[in-house]
């Protein structure tokens, strides 16, 4: 394989470069959302207005329902919009357009519609933003037929998964991890697509299988390091995409380790961890598993006060303790 030159960039910059590459490649790709012409709330579209012009970098009114629905309409005539929701929580203002329209038009119209949209929804806890700006409801969308659900945690994956999303004819929902915008990684000059449904293995081991995604990945990595020091070898995975998800990889791992821990930042009750546990238990049979557990947030809104917020978060220590309790 030829040597590929890579550059170190932040996750936000990786995403920016990925979208930029695709917008250069395909003139039907464009972006719409509040403040995108000035580079987006997070700088994820910096310089786009200058390069692509106001027709392809559309700063919109505060009209989430129409941002979402207009994105769909524009897809139905053959363009490929990137719908920027600014902060995940605001998608609640656009749920009819996402759930009843985008996710269903292709099916409902018997294949006539091609809702090739990408919806970017920066999510998760972030610097004491309280209950209305901290939610993680990615699990909901795994339960919604018609959409692909992507939750990257690294600069590399943000870039490669965005490229896949933009090229996909399916509606792809991307949960950008707000808390990891500044995480750095190396990306190639030409960003290659990363296929949906393939987990990234973070570490290998045979004591326990640890599954996570999004904002918890760095904490899982820290936990693995601490556990390794204590001689506990963990088979850890960043799922990267939740629908489809890499069932085969996780089942194969649990088959070896006999122990499964799924941890996510979202509320534990009704979270995607339940789906993973249920599938693994179903495929391997309970008798072939020693332990299958989840670690998520308690079922409560996110509080503002720093110590309260910290308390309800999943932390590295909590992951370590949970794993140790399973051995």
């Amino acid at each position: 394989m030829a040597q590929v030159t890579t550059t170190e960039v932040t996750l936000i910059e990786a995403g920016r470069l990925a979208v930029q590459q695709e917008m250069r490649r395909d003139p039907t790709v464009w972006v719409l959302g509040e403040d995108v012409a000035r580079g987006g709330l997070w700088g994820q579209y910096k310089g786009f207005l200058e390069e692509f012009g106001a027709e392809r970098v559309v700063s919109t009114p505060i009209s989430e329902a129409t941002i979402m629905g207009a994105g769909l309409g524009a897809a139905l005539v053959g363009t490929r919009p990137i719908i920027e929701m600014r902060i995940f929580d605001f998608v609640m203002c656009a749920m009819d357009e996402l759930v009843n329209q985008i996710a269903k038009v292709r099916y409902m119209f018997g294949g006539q519609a091609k809702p090739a949209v990408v919806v970017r929804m920066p999510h998760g806890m972030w610097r004491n933003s309280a209950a209305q700006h901290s939610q993680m409801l990615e699990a909901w969308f795994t339960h919604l037929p018609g959409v692909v659900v992507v939750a990257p945690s690294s600069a590399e994956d943000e870039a490669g998964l965005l490229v896949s999303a933009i090229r996909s004819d399916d509606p792809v929902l991307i949960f950008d991890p707000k808390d990891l915008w500044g995480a750095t990684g190396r990306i190639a000059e030409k960003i290659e697509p990363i296929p949906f449904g393939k987990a990234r293995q973070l570490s290998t081991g045979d004591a326990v299988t640890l599954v996570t995604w999004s904002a918890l990945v760095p904490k899982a990595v820290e936990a693995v390091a601490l556990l390794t020091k204590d001689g506990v070898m963990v088979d850890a995975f960043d799922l990267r995409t939740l629908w489809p998800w890499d069932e085969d990889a996780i089942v194969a791992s649990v088959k070896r380790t006999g122990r499964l821990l799924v941890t996510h930042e979202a509320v534990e009750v009704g979270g995607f961890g339940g789906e993973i546990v249920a599938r693994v238990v179903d495929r391997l049979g309970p008798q072939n598993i020693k332990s299958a557990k989840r670690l998520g947030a308690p079922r409560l809104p996110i509080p503002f006060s720093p110590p309260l917020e910290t308390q309800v978060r999943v932390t590295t220590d909590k992951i370590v303790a949970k794993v140790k309790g399973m051995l």
Partner: protein
Amino acid sequence: MATRPRPSGAGDNLKRLLELYRTMVRIRAFEETALAAHKAGEIPGPLHVSLGQEGVAAGVCASLRKDDRLTSNHRGHGHAIAKGADPVRMMLELYGREGGSCGGKGGSMHIADFSVGMLGANGVVSGGIPIAVGAAQGLKMLKSDAIVVCMFGDGAINRGPFLEGLNWAALYKLPVLFVCEDNGVAAFTTASSVTAGPGALARAESLGVAGVTIDGNDCPAVDDAVTRLVAKVRGGSGPQFLHAKTYRWTGHTSTDAAAWRDPKEVADAKVRCPIARLEKLLGDRGVDAPDFAVVATQAQAEMDDARAKAKAAPWPKPETAYADVQDVGAAAWHK
């Protein structure tokens, strides 16, 4: 049916009037046939028919090209037929059969035919508005001179997307014609009893979208108005608004006998039937009853044929339930 653009003056053009007439009669025949089939238990699920409102659909679509797009609401049969959709494939869809325009997956409430620019009925009131403005934005971006017509009822002007979508279209000067098909009711509620202020057009104007209010039962008048509005929209003047007053003869759905309605009101409305009205106008121009009968007979034959085909058609193959969900991560079918 006319699908080519035409500068103006429908009222003076006999051929055009006959086209409008034929479209209305075909819509009427389609819906009466579908209602009968529904009553006979052949069509599952509820139907939302537009008997009495045909003047709007026919008048609006006469100025549209095939590549113009249209978004509809839950009451979309007339819009689809006027836009050029094939009644056979539509009827198959209402029956839920193989070959239906949506493969049997949508039914009446999701009737759609993308091949003629009909981007779909919608089960959510106001649901088509954001889609329409986005389609217009996409077309503009693609440098197409096709336009979008967005049809909705008087009930839809009380949902948020109305404000958002009209503001949006005005802001980006998008090629959209908004059409409020005002039949006076929203489901089982008199629309005026839940709508404050001076009405649809005033709301549109306050959002930067100009337009006109007309009698939607006067099909040539609708055609005239739309001809002018479409010329503006296609010419780049931005969105326009048509507030068309009409009346729905029937209940909300095919299962609503509409006992709640004032019978006198319905009787009065029937006197203002858009088809009868155009017959009168055509009569003054020398077209007479036998001519009308020919159109009616042809239309009824066309729809009877559609019904017969639908009734005889096979159900969709079971595996099609699993098709067209999504490319990646779709559920697999196992026999």
